């Protein structure tokens, strides 16, 4: 079962990569959990033919590696969707923040002491 050896190796590589990124603070702990759980699941299924055959039976797939591929795809699609949700929330928050900054800056400018531009316009802030 060479395919399963490869997926086992790949999942170990993924786990190592995520742990390394965690240590370097390139990924936050809360977002590493789904990647670690997903790769751990793939790793276990790769090394445990019994569980994989059981899964293949459920899906009605004759070859165990195909079942693993299907499971891996499903799991990583879920992880990716979660990431999209996080990105969307971040974008919403970021836009609200940008609007707030713009408004605060606008109001600060209105309260500022007259600058050179305002003096040339007759010493009046604003118009």
């Amino acid at each position, binding site marked *: 079962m060479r395919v399963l050896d490869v997926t086992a190796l790949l999942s170990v590589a993924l786990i190592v990569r995520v742990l390394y990124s965690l240590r370097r603070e390139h990924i936050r702990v809360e977002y590493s959990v789904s990647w670690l759980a997903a790769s751990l699941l793939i790793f276990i299924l790769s090394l445990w033919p019994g569980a994989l055959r059981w899964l293949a039976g459920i899906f009605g797939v004759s070859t165990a590696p195909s079942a693993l591929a299907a499971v891996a795809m499903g799991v990583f699609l879920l992880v990716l969707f979660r990431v999209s949700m996080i990105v969307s929330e971040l974008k919403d928050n970021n*836009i609200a923040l*940008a*609007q*707030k*900054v*713009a*408004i605060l*800056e*606008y*109001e600060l*400018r*209105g*309260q500022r002491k007259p600058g050179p531009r305002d003096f040339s316009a007759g010493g009046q*802030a*604003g*118009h």
Partner: protein
Amino acid sequence: MSAQSPATGPPADAGVLLLIPAFNEGASIGAVVREARAVLGPIPIVVLDDCSLDNTATEAMNAGAEVLSVPHHLGLGGCVQAGYRLAYQLGFRRVVRIDGDGQMDPRDVPRLLAALESSGCQMVIGSRFVDSDHDHTSFARSLGIRFFRIVLRPILGRPVRDPTSGFVAVNHEAIELFSKSFPLEYPEIEALVVLKRRAFQFVEVSCTFRPRLAGRSSITVARSFYYIVHVLLGVLVNILRFERHRWR
């Protein structure tokens, strides 16, 4: 309403704010602001600079407008919403939005405001198709307008001639609503559904649009498909959020 009026606050009598969203409109924004100032008198004009790469902000300031600059490019909806938030915070009762490309004639603004007053609606749209079907409109845009007229008819429960018009006047109720909930990327059509969500009303006033002074429309044939899918999804999401509808 929190009318914490700093130096830039509204004059007590008028309460009308003119918002002009602009992205890379340096070639036309000065003329647009000066024309609006000449026609409308001393009303506050705020140009919403969506992080333009050109001299839009400077041109607008030199022409006598205030400038609200967002720290990074937000897209039209995010930029316009910043303007509605500003209007809400400063306590403005009415907001008129025109584009920075000179297509809209500020002489139409008093008619929009009068319609806002007399109709009792929350929003008035300056529409380019109310009387005639020929105007300065690209083929792609007019196709999109026709498509969304058909789509929006059953959703809004009434016909709308120009759902993509960026020439609108809104009252304090719509200002408050839009300051909290406004579509981000292609806002005009979805904003109608946002209004409908709260059972707010709008009327259309016929306006003549002029050829743009400079630059070109952001709507091209290539982007139209993405635009239509994006807006349809946005409309659908807003329908699901109708406050009167509860399916559970």
